C-alpha cells in the first residue's frame, strides 16, 4: 500500500488510457480544448476516488452474481447527485463541466477500477488508487488536448497562437483524436524502449 508505487503505476506503468486502453471514448471526444481536458480530468479524478471508496466499503455485502449491477447503480447514482448539486449550487462550474458529468457514468475507467481494484481492497488504498489513476488520466488528457487545440485550432487555452486558416481542422475532429493518441503511445513506447535499452 505504498503511495509511490501506486502513483508510478497510475501515471506510467498502469496508465488507464495508454496501457489499459480504458476511458477512450472521453479521451477522443472531449480533448479538443485544454479547458475541456482539465475539466474532464478533474471531474473524473474526483468521482473515481469517491466511487472507489464507496465500492470498497460495500465490497463485503455485494454477492458475485449481481456485482456489476450494484457497482454501476452506485456509480450512476453518485454521478447524478454530483451533477444535480453542481447545477444547483455552483452554476458557473456546472456551465463548464456540465456536459462532461453525464459522460462520466459511461466512462470505462470507473467500473474497470471498481471491478479490478476497489472491490478487492480496503477503502484507503482504493482511494489512493482512484487519485493516482485519475492523475494518470488527467495527464494524458492534458497532453492530448494541448496538442489537438494547438494544431487543430491554432489557439492555446483560448489565446490565439497562429491564424485559424493554417490550423488543421481535422485534428479537432475525433479522427484526429485517434491519430494523436496513437502517436502519443508510440512516443511513450519509444521512450520506454530507449530507457530500457539505455540501462
Amino acid at each position, binding site marked *: 500500500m505504498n503511495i509511490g508505487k501506486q502513483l508510478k503505476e497510475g501515471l506510467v506503468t498502469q496508465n488507464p488510457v495508454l496501457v489499459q486502453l480504458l476511458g477512450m471514448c472521453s479521451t477522443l471526444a472531449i480533448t479538443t480544448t485544454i479547458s475541456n481536458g482539465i475539466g474532464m480530468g478533474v471531474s473524473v479524478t474526483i468521482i473515481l476516488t469517491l466511487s472507489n471508496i464507496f465500492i470498497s466499503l460495500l465490497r463485503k455485502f*455485494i454477492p458475485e*452474481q449481481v456485482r456489476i449491477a450494484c457497482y454501476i447503480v*452506485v456509480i450512476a447514482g453518485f454521478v447524478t447527485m454530483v451533477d*444535480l448539486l453542481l447545477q*444547483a449550487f455552483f*452554476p458557473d462550474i456546472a456551465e463548464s463541466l456540465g456536459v462532461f458529468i453525464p459522460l462520466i457514468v459511461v466512462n470505462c475507467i470507473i467500473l474497470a477500477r471498481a471491478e479490478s481494484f476497489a472491490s478487492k481492497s480496503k477503502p484507503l488504498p482504493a482511494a489512493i488508487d482512484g487519485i493516482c489513476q485519475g492523475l494518470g488520466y488527467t495527464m494524458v488528457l492534458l497532453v492530448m488536448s494541448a496538442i489537438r487545440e494547438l494544431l487543430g485550432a491554432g489557439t492555446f487555452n483560448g489565446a490565439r497562437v497562429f491564424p485559424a486558416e493554417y*490550423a488543421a*481542422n481535422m485534428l479537432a*475532429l475525433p479522427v484526429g483524436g485517434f491519430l494523436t493518441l496513437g502517436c502519443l503511445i508510440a512516443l511513450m513506447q519509444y521512450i520506454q524502449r530507449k530507457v530500457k535499452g539505455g540501462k
Partner: protein
Amino acid sequence: MSKPKETASAKQPAFSLDPQYILRITGVLLAICLVTALLLGIVNQITAPRIDAIQKAKKEAAMSLVLPADEYVLWEGNLPAHVTALYLANSGGEGIGWVAETATSGSQGTIEMMVGVGTDGKVTGVSVVKHSETPNIGTKVVADQSVLDRFTGMSHENGEITVNSGSNRFDAVSGATFSSRGVVEGVNAALAAVGQLS
C-alpha cells in the same frame, strides 16, 4: 446452513434451489437501489427549485437578447416539429412578437436556439442556447453572433429559407454546412410556428 462461498468451485456439490440464496442476492440489489433512489430523491428535492430558477433566468436572458420585452407568456397549443416552446412577448400591455425555442440536429448533436419573430413575421434575432458542435468548425456558425445576425429581417414571404441556393437564401459557412443547415432548420421551424398562429 453453511454459507455458500461465492466462487463456483467451492459450492457444495448438490445445490437445491435454496430460497436463502435467492433472497440474499435480490435483497442486496434491492437495498442498494432503494438507498440510491432515496438519496437521489432527496438531492433532487433540494436542488430542483434552484435549478429551475437558474434555467428560467438563463432562458429569460436569451429571450431578451433576441426580442427585448417586459414579459414572456408561454403559449399553450400544439407546436410544429422542432419547436419545443413558444412564448408571446408583450411589453407595455400589447404583444410585440413571439419567441420560439427550437431544437434541431447539427453535425455532432442537437442545437437549442431562441428565435424572435416580430408581429410583421420578420426575424428579430437568433441566439443559440446550447450546442455540442465541434470547436473551430461548427462553432464558426453557432458561436459567431455576426453569422446569426444575418438572419435578422428574413421571413417566409417568399418561401422557406434555403442554404446556398433559392430565392430566400442563406449562405452557409464553408466547411460547416451541417451546422448551418441545423440553424436554418431552426429558424424555418420558428417562422412556420408563428405563421401558423397569425
